[in-house]
């Protein structure tokens, strides 16, 4: 799918990621997980109630901390926003739509940060919060291959997605990726998943 067409579909669906199955378009991780579960594929069936509670809690931690921090750094930090984010966000569109959409998105994100109390936080505080979140995840992972024993679950997918993005996206500074790299088990977790699940696909020529 070309970049422009994807951007168009994401406007309709509202959010990426999305999957397009037959007539349906399902977006965002939660609904996609439920969709695949309805089709008979679920990763968290083997967990008991307490473990499922923990898994959901850690997923919310990732959403609460990592996602918000990513948004903050991309849109509320002036240098990053002007040099990298706005250009990247508006690249599929032509003038003047690119300017309008970029500034609108920035305004939305800043309103959200205000509402949840992150507007008053400085960049250092945000990095500190990310560090704490990574340490919590690192503690939970320990020396296991995945967060819940030997099988990957939705939490592994979510954590991998966020960490991989942070590690591979070039920003104005490397502070954020350095903070993640300081937790060595998280780094090896990301590498392991990338090698196990994504390098095969590369060989098949899909990615």
């Amino acid at each position: 799918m070309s970049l422009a067409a994807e951007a168009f579909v994401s406007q309709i669906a509202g959010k990426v990621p999305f999957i397009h199955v037959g007539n349906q378009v399902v977006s965002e991780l939660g609904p996609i997980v439920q969709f695949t579960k309805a089709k008979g594929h679920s990763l968290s069936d083997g967990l008991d109630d307490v473990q499922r509670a923990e898994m959901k809690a850690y997923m919310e931690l990732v959403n609460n901390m990592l996602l918000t921090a990513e948004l903050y750094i991309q849109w509320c930090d002036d240098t990053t926003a002007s040099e990298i984010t706005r250009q990247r966000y508006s690249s599929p569109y032509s003038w003047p739509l690119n300017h309008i959409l970029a500034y609108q998105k920035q305004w939305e994100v800043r309103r959200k940060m205000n509402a949840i109390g992150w507007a008053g936080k400085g960049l250092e505080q945000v990095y500190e919060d990310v560090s704490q979140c990574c340490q919590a995840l690192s503690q939970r992972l320990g020396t296991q291959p995945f967060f819940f024993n030997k099988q990957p679950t939705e939490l592994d997918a979510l954590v991998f997605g966020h960490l991989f993005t942070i590690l591979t996206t070039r920003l104005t500074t490397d502070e954020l990726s350095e903070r993640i790299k300081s937790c060595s088990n998280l780094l090896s977790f990301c590498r392991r998943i990338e090698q196990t699940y994504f390098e095969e696909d590369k060989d098949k020529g899909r990615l």
Partner: protein
Amino acid sequence: MRGQGAEPLLCWGGDWDLPSVHTESLIVLAYAKFAGAKLTVKPVDWTWRTITAVIPQLNYECSSVTEPTQILNFLRKNRFNADYELSAKQGADTMAYIALLEEKLQPALLHTFWVDAENYSSLTKPWFAAHSPFPLGFFVPGRLAGAALSRILLTKAEAPLHSITEVEGKIYSDAKECLNLLSHRLGTSLYFFGNAPTSLDAFVFGYLAPLHKASLPSGQLQQHLKQLHNLCHFCSTILQNYFTEAGRPHSNQDAVDANLQKLTQLVNKESNLIEKMDDNLRSSPQHRLNRAHRPAPKPSFQTAGRNSTPA
């Protein structure tokens, strides 16, 4: 703050059997009790602070700390640490569960108290209006309600595309799921990590207690909570152990009263027995012959009765 001077904490006042009706204030109050920190509680009710201050607020020396997480961090740094016994993994779990509460439960709580028309007009608005000084009573509830609505919309809906009605269903089902998860996690324990309450217990208590205790006309979430008996018991336990009549002394007084009652009952029993024996004695034929020896047995039975009770 070296623990001696009780630092003033600004918070909303109490009602519905709770020390405060405001979630964030409750979190801080509960944590302070768990950690043994002495705070001077200054309710902002009926003062201009209802509109000027960010609540809860802890004032120390010349500056102040707001927001429950920051206040708890501050208390921990000053060695009031209720999480001292937790392992690193339990600390990580605490962070995760607090995130769960904020993401899944808080929107529905805000909706229940501030956006739901019936609850807002019959409970929340009158309460906050009555607890604000004139003329702020006209502005304070509206302002808080507006903040609650915008928070829900900005975090859960793609504002301004969606309206509140489109996300209502989702936020309530998320909240019910969150309550179920908390109930599973708590199980049959007294607190979330063993037998001593920690910061997670403070957060859960702060979120659940108003929902548990308020008399909401339209309360589907409250109905759901009432079915989760371990969570209700959790709230009641904390209220009983830490918040009845400034905590422990009340339960001591109860124990003393109970002992006194037991003592009185035993003494009464003994004196009944004595009277019976006395009657028997009087009616016995030998007594009629030996009237002079009567008074001796009584005092020794009574003193024996008193001595035997404290065991």
